[in-house]
């Protein structure tokens, strides 16, 4: 019984695949949404250029970390994060929100699976 439990724990700890990537997908979705919000407010003149620049850099840095933590980086969601990172810092909010919605769709489908 103890061996079985230990094995189950080890398997859980080393799990790969979409389930293990779910927290990172949610994080990437939020980061994309934050980026869109920052750019929207920057376009409206509601934030300082320094704030916009530093937030964009921080958000991209976090997205890079999320991509690096994926157990399946060549998956649909991995590609989505990579194309997000390829966007320019001042990308349009609509473009960024399209990625947000795509990641949200993937997140929801994995959660309901």
């Amino acid at each position, binding site marked *: 019984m103890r061996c079985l439990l230990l094995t189950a724990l080890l398997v859980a700890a080393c799990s790969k695949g979409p389930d293990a990537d*779910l*927290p990172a997908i*949610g*994080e990437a*979705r*939020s*980061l994309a*949404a*934050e980026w*869109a*919000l*920052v750019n929207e*407010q920057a376009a*409206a*003149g*509601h*934030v*300082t250029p*320094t*704030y916009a*620049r*530093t*937030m964009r850099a*921080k*958000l991209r840095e*976090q997205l890079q970390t999320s991509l690096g933590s994926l157990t399946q980086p060549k998956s649909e969601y991995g590609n989505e994060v990579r194309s997000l990172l390829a966007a320019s810092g001042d990308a349009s909010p609509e473009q960024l929100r399209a990625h*947000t*919605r795509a990641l*949200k769709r993937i997140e929801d489908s994995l*959660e309901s699976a």
Partner: protein
Amino acid sequence: MNPLELTLGIMTAVGGFVDISELVFAAQAGSIFGYALIWAFAFSTIGIMAFGEMAGRVAAVANQPVFNLMRHRLGLKLGLVTLFASLLSTLVTCAAEIGGLGLILHYLTGAPYLLMSVVSTAVVMASMWVLPFKWIERVYGLLGLLMLVFAAALVAIHPPWDKVLGGFVPQVPSSLSTKQLLQFGYFGVAILSAVMFPYEAYFYSSGGMEEKWGPKDLLTNRVTTTVGFVLGSLLAIAILASSAQLFGPALVGPEEPGTTALEAAIPFGRAGLLIALLGMLMAVAGAAVETCMANAYAISQFFGWEWGRHKKPWDAPRFTIAWIAFMLLALAIVLTGADVMTLVEYAVLFSIIVLPLTYLPLMLLAGDKGYMGQYANKWLAKGLGWTYFVIVCLAAAAAIPLYLLTSGGQA
């Protein structure tokens, strides 16, 4: 009771209530669960009011600092365990605050984050050296009132007030999946921990002794802990409610502490953003001072050293070395590159585990007629104290499993 002193005390409590942990968890809770966790803030605030009042009363009546009395009640061995656990949890909290300071200055100036962490630490340490206790508390507390911009921002975005008020009713949303329920539980525990951080009781109690409180100041103590903490809590609730209105529908987590400032930028533009960032800077700086001094108080009182910032630094030399050392240790943790959000999570996790060890001796002391005479806990303080002690124990037991099961609140 001097009305000016009382007003300043309340305003200081308001401005000093919110720290980096509450900023982060309020914004995330609002975004993920809407208004459903407002009651967790309200509930936790009643807890800190009860224990804060006890801590102030013990300082004013027994005229002994909390950690002196704690060692006397718990003895050396258990006292050392409590001391060590408390120092560790407060050190991590201090590191989170310093990291938060570095980040906020980075958003304001564009200068590198780690450099800003070093600069802000130096400025905070200089202020702790130069200013006597009363002015340290007042400067950071009163400047922290810039955070009121978040309350104004909530009003400006016209939230559904019926839903905001409905959030004060204890609830668990019915439509949650098992994972989301666990996440909800995790946020409830994290909010309890962030509001009832152990360092707040130590700092408040020692602060009362720094200001030479006596039985005549008991009304001041009661008013500060009730009115001040309630108003401070409403600020945190305003951040949560704005997040529910602005961030939730936009699918924003938020993952970056700087995103919270957008709550003021959206209705008020650049001026709102700048006031929000400056308010966050002062509130987090105040929390860095409190956590650092709470550790210095704890170790000095436990070993019977001279302590207090009402004395000049050279008149309490080991206390001075202690707060300098703790501040530098906290900075060292930040300089390892540890992520601020991770530090916040660990601060909250360690603190909830230490909370029962902190609050039980305090409650027993406040109820001990030998020390407190006629000012010992009466039925309300006893009732609230024991109720919250049980809740804190349950939360402490649930904290680590919930953290692991939800991957740190990610579900």
